[in-house]
């Protein structure tokens, strides 16, 4: 493959792919470690939302390790808002790989003595918004993106939402608001994993019409495979060129890679299942 002469932040292989092989290996390693660590958390706490977390691992890994730019200025840094806050274990696991959180802290998740809360809080390093109540991240992201524009900052705002979350009325309020503000620095992900808390989205409230709605409202709509680093990166690179707010519908699988709950509405599993996975995978 030759020597990768493109700086990591810019990304891209010398053969024209959006990610070099070395970078792709790194992302794979990080995601695999984060996946194992989320499942390992089941040894310590069985109430975390494993299913939703495993749906988000690759998107979080790609954003945090490839796209998010840090800066001491609030308006020149990129913001990452996990609106689907119940995927916090995935966020923590990826942030641990990046060095924001000590790995031993992961095993104290939700413990009374621990730092890591069941849902993200801004007092946790690397967390940009306290979430946990669905439907609020996009509006907050519009506020941040607007503030950045007013200050002529270079920061971008990434918001990660779930498909179940789209039931919230505030999403409509925010979706119609963002286009009025002309925010070309706002990129939203919607993970389409076809499950919400009580069951499949199809039986509870179908979501298949959503891309058409967002497009009709005025968003640039993109699609990606939410577990494929190249597909995610292609979508993000295209989003940067859109000149308006972008929503990326990411096809994902609940419980991805963890056979005990994969592609079901189940969030939780047992330490035994976790042990089996960690021994075999």
């Amino acid at each position, binding site marked *: 493959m030759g020597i990768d002469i493109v700086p990591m932040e810019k990304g891209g292989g010398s053969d024209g792919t959006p990610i070099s092989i070395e970078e792709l290996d790194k992302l794979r390693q990080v995601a695999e470690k984060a996946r194992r660590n989320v499942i390992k958390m089941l040894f310590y706490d069985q109430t975390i939302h494993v299913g939703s977390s495993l749906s988000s691992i690759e998107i979080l890994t790609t954003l945090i390790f490839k796209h998010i730019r840090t800066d001491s200025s609030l308006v020149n840094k990129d913001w990452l808002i996990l609106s689907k806050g119940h995927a916090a274990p995935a966020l923590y696991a990826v942030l641990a790989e990046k060095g924001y959180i000590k790995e031993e802290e992961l095993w104290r998740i939700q413990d009374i003595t621990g730092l890591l809360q069941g849902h993200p809080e801004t007092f946790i390093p690397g967390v*940009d*918004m306290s979430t946990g109540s669905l439907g609020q991240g996009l*509006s*907050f*992201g*519009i*506020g941040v993106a607007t*503030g950045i524009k007013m200050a002529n*900052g270079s920061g971008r705002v990434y918001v990660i939402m779930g498909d179940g979350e789209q039931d919230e009325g505030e999403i409509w309020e925010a979706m119609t608001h963002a286009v009025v503000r002309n925010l070309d620095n706002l990129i939203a992900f919607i993970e389409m994993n076809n499950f919400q808390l009580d069951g499949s989205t199809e039986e509870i409230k179908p979501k298949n019409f959503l891309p058409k709605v967002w497009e009709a409202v005025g968003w640039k709509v993109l699609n990606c495979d939410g577990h494929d680093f190249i597909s995610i990166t292609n979508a993000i690179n295209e989003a940067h060129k859109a000149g308006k707010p972008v929503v990326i519908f990411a096809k994902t699988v609940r419980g991805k890679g963890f056979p005990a709950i994969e592609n079901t509405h189940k969030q939780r599993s047992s330490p035994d299942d976790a042990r089996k996975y960690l021994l075999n995978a």
Partner: protein
Amino acid sequence: MMQGNIYSMRETFGRLLADLGDKNKDLIVITADVGDSTRALYFREKFKDRYFNIGISEQDMVNFAAGLAAVGKKPAIVNFGMFLMRAWEQIRNSIARMNLDVKMFVTHTGYSDHGDGSSHQVLEDIALMRVLPNMKVIVPADPKDIERSLPVIINEERGPLYYRIGREYSPPITVGQEYEFKIGKAYVIKDGSDLAIIGAGVVLWDALKAAEELEKLGISVAVINLFSIKPIDESTIEYYARKTGKIITIEEHSIYGGIGSAVAEVTARRYPVPIRFVGATTFGRSARSQRDLLDYYNINYKTIIRETIDLLK
């Protein structure tokens, strides 16, 4: 353009907020399509690029403001009190939980939106706001109180704050009084020794009127302007509980969880005395004036006098 009444609560507020925009370059005014009714539009006339009418979307408005505060702006939400309560959970989970510098200025509270009826008359907001960690709750009595407090709040105060005003009705209450606004401070606007009336907002006019009538009967009544509901001035409340031994609270708000409850929480801990609560106990209704509603629901000086005589038996 709008015909302004300089003695109205919202008019005084709207003009002053626009003036404060000169010095505060990061001040941003946000409303959910009630810029005209709340007088937020005066700010827009001067600072179009720092004014956002985001449409009839209160939940989005709250989180939008939270996001702006997170990048260092100073957002001021200006809205009807009632419809901001629709976004209580957003206020709780985003503004209060992250302790963000978002100010909420609400108009049309209590019975001030008399004609629109119970759907618009918020009588529960003080309870809903003062229960929130990090939240400050301020209730000015009249336009003069707005002039005292708004510059301090915009120029100096940081963190979540809820500021409650009405609409047009604004009898002069504190004109001629000499005090400067300070967060957490209550003001004695009339001294007395037999009974203390503690309240906030336009109903303090009734407190003063009752005190005047009671003086004629030889009863010495203190009237305390509980300008800052939260943080609350515990020492002044305790001092007057000890001094008078009897308290009547008055509020244009539900007596359940409102100003009376806040006062009772203080006296129960520091110096328990008998308290009578004058305020709302149910939904409002339409009327041709705010005054008609206050009288209809017995939130007036007559009730205070009756309760006082009963307390003194």
